[in-house]
């Protein structure tokens, strides 16, 4: 209580300070504007003003000044693709988990590690290459806009001569990258640097996350109030702050709130990428409704109201992926591609591919809501699943009784994917391999693909497989709408509202509690009593009238 009182007092004083700051800034404007935001113009460095024959050559040049940069990067998940979840102890990360999209990285490296923050990781059974020059500085720091990673070269860029038909990781036709130009352009990561990988996860634009699509390269205000140039014009790393190349923000260990935001000294460093890190837990103003909205923040994540739907702005997200139907071919034995979903921006998305099976797509998707404390447990490849129920690839921790939990929005991905029907474990696949005779995308043979996938990782596979329905949860944290587009109260405060599945918290209008039932019963009994009493009175009046008439 005292804390809150202090927070209110601090807010008042902060508003005065802020007013003073605006005045001071206005005074600054008359001074000659700064020409460059940096003290080092990399285009003037001799070591960069030369042609480079490969990515690692550029990195070597970078390391000649930034001597510890590769070491820092090599200690991050961007490099290791491995993460030990602190609560469960599970060893997660791209190199270990099986997801409900492409499944597993192992065996499919050249394609999957095309998004690795390095070069040449061709075998994820081993840690990423130990050579500091294998770190890809340009993926994150190029600002020339013409650096790209080819989609099947284990992270290497397309260089002259580019193989005809080759594609970059965003699916664009590949062009020969000018490494020298890229090296001289380096700067802080832009949305393009992050987006080129993260907007295309799962093999295409917005396939995986739902709230991370190419729309965010230049989003309208209505799609993302932070990233839009009509809004705050922020970059990814404004929130995902970085220390020693460790970038904050994780869906394995999510900050569902930043509990110390309102006690942190103004300007103090914070490495938590939660809404309240900047906005505090009491951002709604002091109107009756504002104060009541503030009462929500200890239970409802900001994202739940302020991201009314995901996959907004014209790019759909994949909502269902059914691998079990993959492999159907034409009479001539050719693979099939069936489009049929036209997304908001006019682009066709596939509904069936022989390589991947059936898909469903969604735009402006209403999230799935669940209690969430930020921790997840994965159905790991070495753990048995229960094939009689839908399997949760990642199950969410948290409940109403836990003060650290919030009601959080998710994309709930529906999958149907291969598992070993004898050991009841999720199966590794081998899908990518243009020249192999076992890869599914080349041979369309599940038996071979799953056997090869198991063999590659040394998994004990029975040879008997089936397909299991799965859910996978993706926290929805991006595409924050302008305040005016936040959810109306009634979206949750009605009987079949968005909180219908949420237990353990009182949601007015969300359903009748014991008090309401009992209260209405009392009222109805009272009303019946009134009706009965009135009826008896009328009978009495009639009877007396009758009597009077007889006597009269």
């Amino acid at each position, binding site marked *: 209580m005292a804390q809150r009182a202090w927070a209110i007092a601090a807010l008042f004083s902060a508003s005065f300070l802020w007013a003073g700051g605006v005045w001071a800034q206005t005074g600054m404007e008359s001074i000659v504007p700064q020409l460059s935001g940096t003290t080092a113009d990399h285009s003037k460095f001799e070591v960069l003003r030369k042609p480079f024959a490969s990515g690692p050559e550029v990195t070597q040049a970078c390391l000649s000044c930034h001597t510890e940069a590769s070491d820092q990067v090599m200690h991050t998940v961007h490099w290791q693709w491995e993460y030990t979840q602190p609560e469960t102890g599970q060893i997660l990360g791209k190199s270990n988990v099986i997801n409900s999209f492409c499944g597993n990285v192992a065996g499919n490296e050249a394609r999957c590690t095309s998004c690795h923050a390095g070069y040449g990781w061709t075998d994820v059974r081993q840690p990423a290459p130990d050579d500091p020059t294998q770190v890809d500085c340009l993926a994150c720091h190029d600002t020339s806009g013409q650096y790209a990673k080819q989609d099947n070269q284990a992270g290497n860029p397309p260089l002259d001569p580019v193989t005809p038909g080759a594609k970059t990781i965003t699916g664009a036709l590949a062009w020969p990258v000018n490494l020298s130009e890229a090296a001289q352009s380096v700067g802080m990561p832009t949305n393009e640097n992050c987006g080129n990988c993260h907007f295309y996860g799962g093999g295409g634009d917005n396939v995986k996350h739902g709230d991370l699509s190419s729309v965010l390269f230049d989003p309208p205000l209505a799609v993302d109030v932070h990233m839009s140039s009509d809004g705050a014009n922020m970059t990814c790393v404004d929130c995902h702050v970085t220390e020693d190349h460790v970038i904050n923000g994780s869906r394995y260990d999510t900050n569902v709130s930043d509990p110390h935001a309102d006690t942190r000294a103004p300007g103090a460093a914070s490495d938590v990428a939660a809404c309240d890190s900047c906005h505090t837990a009491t951002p709604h103003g002091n109107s*009756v409704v504002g104060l009541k909205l503030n009462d929500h923040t200890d239970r409802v994540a900001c994202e739940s109201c302020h991201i009314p739907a995901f996959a907004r702005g014209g790019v759909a997200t994949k909502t269902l992926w059914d691998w079990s139907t993959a492999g159907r071919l034409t009479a001539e034995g050719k693979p099939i591609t069936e489009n049929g979903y036209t997304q908001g921006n006019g682009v066709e998305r596939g509904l069936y591919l022989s390589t991947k099976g059936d898909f469903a797509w969604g735009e402006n998707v209403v999230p799935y809501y669940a209690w969430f404390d930020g921790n997840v447990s994965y159905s790991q490849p070495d753990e048995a699943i229960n094939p009689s129920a839908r399997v949760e690839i990642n199950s969410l921790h948290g409940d109403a009784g836990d*003060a650290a939990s919030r009601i959080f929005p998710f994309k709930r991905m529906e999958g149907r994917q291969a598992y070993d029907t004898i050991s009841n474990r999720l199966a590794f696949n081998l899908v990518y391999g243009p020249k192999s005779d076992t890869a599914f995308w080349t041979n369309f043979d599940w038996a071979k693909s799953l056997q090869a996938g198991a063999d590659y990782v040394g998994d004990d596979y029975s040879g008997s497989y089936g397909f299991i329905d799965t859910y996978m949860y993706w926290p929805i944290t991006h595409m924050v709408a302008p305040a005016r587009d936040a959810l109306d109260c009634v979206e949750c405060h009605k009987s079949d509202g968005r909180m219908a599945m949420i237990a353990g918290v009182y949601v007015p209008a969300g359903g009748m509690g014991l008090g309401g039932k009992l*209260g209405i019963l009392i009222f109805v009994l009272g009303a019946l009593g009134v009706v009965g009493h009135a009826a008896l009175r009328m009978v009495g009046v009639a009877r007396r009238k009758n009597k009077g008439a007889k006597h009269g």
Partner: protein
Amino acid sequence: MAERLVKVYSRFNRIWHWLQVVLILMLFFTGTRIMGLHTLIPFEGAVTLHTLSALVLLVLWAFATFWLFTTENWKQFIPRYKGLPQVIRFYAWGVFRGEEHPYQKAYHRRHNPLQALTYLALKIVLFPAIWMSGLAYLLYTFWSPLDDQSFWLMVVANIHILAAFSVATFVLLHVYLLTIGGFRVHVRPMISGFEEVEVSAEAEAYFAAEKPERLKAEG
């Protein structure tokens, strides 16, 4: 003893009553909206109106409580057994047979024993239940750091709703009982302030001499 039209409901008393009527109806209308029984107005507007009406009612109650204790009026609500069985018997039996109401209103005792008992219960049980639970709900922010706050919010909300329907049931019965003996006859005093009550000769003389405005001329 004579029946005289005496001003039994002072101006404040009447304002209190009618403002309370308006506010309670408003609270019931907006409250049932908030709990989802109707959707005649937007949820957000209902929350605002409900909160503001409740705050006004609380201020009114503070004034009324002060008024009750600084005037003699609190004594009107002291429960008395005398006459209670007769009044109960009247409502349960006599009223159907066309009997007269057994209670004769007096200036210092304008409520019949059952009425006084009911109003007292309203004042010390139902109203506190509703405003305490309502305030607890409104001031959630101050106790939300407690463990199991969501559970306790559910308890608070259910108590509030149960108390609200109990008040609504009181209102229903209250209005219905006005029809016994004539609705208008019963409502008029709460508008004009004057009601026909039994006044002793001494009291009549006192009013005539000291408070002539409280006594309406006969005829």
